[in-house]
């Protein structure tokens, strides 16, 4: 299990290879990469977080996933600070024996990270900056698990 909360950019391909090389006996690696979308006039994003709680909350979510799906390994990277459109915001990777558990665990991690890890996004446009509102669908997604 590895968790990185950092302002620094990361290289999703490097992380996928590094992660894939480690777990012995894995048959299935699922990765998710979230990118800054740049809807409308947005030129980038500012991500605020709660140092300390962020690490605790994500570690707890990763522990849950590991036990529930018997994962061989998992990785979460989440950035904060200023990001440009197209940049990777975050990444999740899980290694399982079979594909269905790997897909479920990655999907679960994303749902929980979205609504339970203390990050807040602010969309930056040419002449405006607006906090992204949470979506009822994101909170509802947690009920799937």
């Amino acid at each position, binding site marked *: 299990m590895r968790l990185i909360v950092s302002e620094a950019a990361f290289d999703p391909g490097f992380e996928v290879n590094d992660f894939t090389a480690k777990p012995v006996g894995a048959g299935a690696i699922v990765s998710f990469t979230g990118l800054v979308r740049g809807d409308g006039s947005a030129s980038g994003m500012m991500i605020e977080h709660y140092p300390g709680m962020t690490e605790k909350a994500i570690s707890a979510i990763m522990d849950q996933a590991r036990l529930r799906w018997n994962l061989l390994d998992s990785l979460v990277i989440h950035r904060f600070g200023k990001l440009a459109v197209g940049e990777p915001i975050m990444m999740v990777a899980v290694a399982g024996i079979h594909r269905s558990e790997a897909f479920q665990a990655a999907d679960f991690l994303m749902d929980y990270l979205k609504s339970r890890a203390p*990050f*807040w996004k602010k969309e930056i446009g040419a002449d405006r900056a607006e*906090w992204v509102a949470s979506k009822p669908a994101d909170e509802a997604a947690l009920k799937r698990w």
Partner: protein
Amino acid sequence: MIDVLYFAWVRERIGLPRETVETGAETVSGLIAELVARDERYALAFSDLASLRVALDQELAGFDAPLKGVREVAFFPPMTGG
């Protein structure tokens, strides 16, 4: 003495990221009432509790949670990470 932290638009409305507060409040709601009584910035930040979340010592909690033994309270909007 308790550390109170604010994030995202709560921080912006109140105008500071954290402060140390002397309080006799027994619950989160009691603390909010004391803060709101201070001035308009707090009243504005706490005007709609449904759009706020609270964490006690870095764990999500309810507004009726007791403050006894708590060292750090944080107020923020629903999270939007991922």
